[in-house]
C-alpha cells in the first residue's frame, strides 16, 4: 500500500509537467494582446511596445517559458499584470471561500444522495423509488442559477432566514459562516446530488442481486446491516468515483454560484483574470485546479484499496 502511494505520487510529476506546458502555450496562442489591453485603448504603438518589454513579452516564447518554469519550481507563480500582486497571494486569499463552498456542497450532495440512492434501490420500482428518482431528475434538470435565484427569493428575501448573498469568513464567526454557505451549497449541490443518487441506486441494485446478499439475508441479519454494510460497501467503488468526478464539475460550477451569490472565491478570480488577459493569474489558477484534480484522483485510487480488499497494486 505505502509503495503504491509513493509510486502514484511520483506519477503526479509528469502529469503536472504536461499540464504546465499546455497551459503556458495555450494562453500564448489565444487571440488578444495583453500589452495592448494594459496600455489602454488610446495608447500609441510605442507605449504598447514599452509595456511589452516591461512584461518580458518581447522575448522568445521558449525563454518566457523557461523563466516561468524556474519560478514555478521555487513556488513562484508570477505577478499579476494589473495589480502587481503575487499570484500565489491572490490565490491564497480567494482559496478559503471556494474551499468552504466546495466542501459544504460536497457534504450537502453526499448526505442527501447516498440515503436517497440506497432507499431507491432497496424499494426498487416502488413508489418511494419513483419519488426519490423523480426528485433526483428534477434536481439534475434544474440550472444552478435558476435554483439559486428561487432559493434567494424565498429564503433570503421573503422569509429573511438567510443572507441574500456574500461570504462571511470563518474567522468572523462560525454561525454567520455557515449561514452564508447554506443557499449556495444547496443550489450547487442539488445537481450533483442527483448524479450521485442515480449512481448509488444503479450500483446498489446490481449488488443486491449478488449471492452474498442472499447469504446475508439467509443469516437473518437486520435490513440496515444488509444494506449499509454488506451492499453499500460493495457498491462503493463506482459511487466514490462519481463523487470524485463530481468535484471536477463542482469547480466549474463554483464560477456561476460565486457570481450569483457574490462570493469572492477562485471562480470570480478566474472570470476577472480571463477577461483582462491577466496571464500569470490564469496560468496559476489552471495549475492549481489541475493539481486539485490530480490529488482527488489519487485519493480516489487509494480509497479503492480500502473499500475492496481484492484491489492491490
Amino acid at each position, binding site marked *: 500500500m505505502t509503495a503504491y502511494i509513493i509510486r502514484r505520487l511520483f506519477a503526479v510529476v509528469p502529469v503536472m509537467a504536461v499540464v504546465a506546458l499546455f497551459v503556458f502555450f495555450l494562453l500564448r496562442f489565444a487571440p488578444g494582446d495583453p500589452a495592448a489591453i494594459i496600455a489602454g485603448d488610446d495608447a500609441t504603438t510605442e507605449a504598447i511596445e514599452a509595456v511589452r518589454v516591461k512584461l518580458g513579452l518581447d522575448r522568445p516564447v521558449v525563454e518566457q517559458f523557461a523563466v516561468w518554469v524556474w519560478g514555478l519550481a521555487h513556488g513562484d507563480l508570477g505577478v499579476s499584470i494589473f495589480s502587481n500582486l503575487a499570484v500565489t497571494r491572490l490565490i491564497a486569499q480567494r482559496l478559503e471561500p471556494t474551499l468552504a463552498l466546495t466542501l459544504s456542497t460536497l457534504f450537502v450532495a453526499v448526505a442527501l444522495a447516498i440515503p436517497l440512492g440506497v432507499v431507491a434501490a432497496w424499494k*426498487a*420500482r416502488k413508489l418511494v423509488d419513483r419519488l426519490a428518482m423523480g426528485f433526483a431528475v428534477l434536481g439534475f434538470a434544474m440550472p444552478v442559477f435558476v435554483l439559486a435565484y428561487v432559493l434567494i427569493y424565498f429564503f433570503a428575501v421573503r422569509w429573511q432566514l438567510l443572507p441574500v448573498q456574500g461570504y462571511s469568513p470563518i474567522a468572523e464567526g462560525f454561525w454567520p459562516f455557515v449561514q452564508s454557505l447554506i443557499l449556495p451549497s444547496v443550489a450547487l449541490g442539488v445537481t450533483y446530488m442527483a448524479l450521485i443518487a442515480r449512481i448509488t441506486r444503479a450500483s446498489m441494485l446490481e449488488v443486491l442481486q*449478488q*449471492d*452474498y446478499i*442472499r*447469504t*446475508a*439475508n*439467509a*443469516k*437473518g*441479519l*437486520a435490513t440496515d*446491516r444488509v444494506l449499509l*454494510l*454488506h451492499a453499500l*460497501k*460493495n457498491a462503493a467503488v463506482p459511487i466514490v468515483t462519481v463523487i470524485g468526478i463530481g468535484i471536477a464539475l463542482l469547480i466549474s460550477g463554483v464560477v456561476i454560484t460565486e457570481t450569483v451569490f457574490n462570493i469572492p472565491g477562485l471562480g470570480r478570480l478566474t472570470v476577472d483574470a480571463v477577461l483582462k488577459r491577466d496571464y500569470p493569474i490564469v496560468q496559476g489558477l489552471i495549475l492549481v485546479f489541475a493539481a486539485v484534480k490530480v490529488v482527488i484522483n489519487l485519493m480516489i485510487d487509494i480509497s479503492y484499496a480500502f*473499500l*475492496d*480488499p*481484492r484491489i492491490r497494486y
Partner: protein
Amino acid sequence: MSGNSGGILEVRDLHTQFNTLDGVVRAVDGVSFDLARGETLGIVGESGCGKSVTALSILRLIPPETGRIASGSIKFEGEELTTLGEEAMKRLRGHRISMIFQEPMTSLNPVLTVGTQIAENVTRHLGVSKKAARERACEMLDLVRIADARRRLDEYPHQLSGGMRQRVMIAMALSCDPQVLIADEPTTALDVTIQAQILDLMLDLKEKTGTAIVLITHDLGVVAETTQRVVVMYAGRKVEEAPVEALFDNPLHPYTRGLMAAIPRLDVDAPRLQEIPGMVPLLTRPIVGCAFAARCPIATERCRTAAPPMVDVGGGHTALCWEVTP
C-alpha cells in the same frame, strides 16, 4: 421416520410460483415431506425441478418482486412459517434454520473478513459481545478444520480456496447451533476430492451437533453416501420418497429408474451412457395427468389424462405413479 412424532420440519402441499414474461411458473407444485430431528434428508432431481426453490421457500427467501408461496404449509417445530412475521422470520434464519449455498466463490461477501461474517451471525442471534462472537468464530473455524483459525479470521474470502470458503460457509451456518441445516448443492462447485472432504465434514458435524440436514443435490452418489431418506423431485412435484437403501434397491418411479440408469457404471460394458429421452415439461402451463408421462417408457393413456395417485408400498416408500402397485 416420516411420522409427525419426531418431525422438526413439516412441509405440506407447498406451491411456490414465479411471475415471468411467459406466465406463471409453478416451480414447486404440491410438495410434502417431513424432516425428523437429527435426520439427513436428500432431495434429488435435475436442474429446474424445484429443489432449490423448495429450500428457499422454507426460509422464505423467495424474492418478493417475482415469486411467492401460493399455498401450502411449512411448520418448524410446530410453528407455521408461511404466515410468520418478517421480523420473527429473521430471528429464525441463520439461528435455528441455516442455509449453505452452491457457489462458495460468490456466496461470501468479498469486502468483509471471514471473521466478521461469522461473528455477525453470532452477535445477531445470540446477543453476545463482539469479543465473544469473535472467539466463537475462531472456534467454528477450528471445528470445520481450517488450520491456523485465528489468523484466517482476518482474511478475506478471495484469499481462501473454494473448499475453504465452503468450510467457512458451514462454520457460519452452524455458528448458532441450528436445528436444521439446508445445504443447497454444497459440493457441486468443488473438485471431487474436496467434495468428499466437505461431505465428511458435514456428516461429522451433524453427529456432534445433532443438526438435521436437508441435502439438496442432483448427484445420486452423494445421496447414497450421506442421506438416510430421499425425496425425488420432478417438474415441481415429489415423485418418490423412500429410505435410501429402499430407493437404491427398488426404485419404483420410472423417473427414478431413469436417473439410476443414467449413472455411469464401471462394471457394465455399455457402449454409451443411458439418458432419459425428451425434455422437462414447461411449468408455465398446468400439467394434465402425470408430469413425466411424455418421457416415460411405460406410460399409458391413463397417465396422460389423469393425475397419478401417491402409492404407498410400505416401509415409508411412496411413489407418484399409476403403474406402481402397493
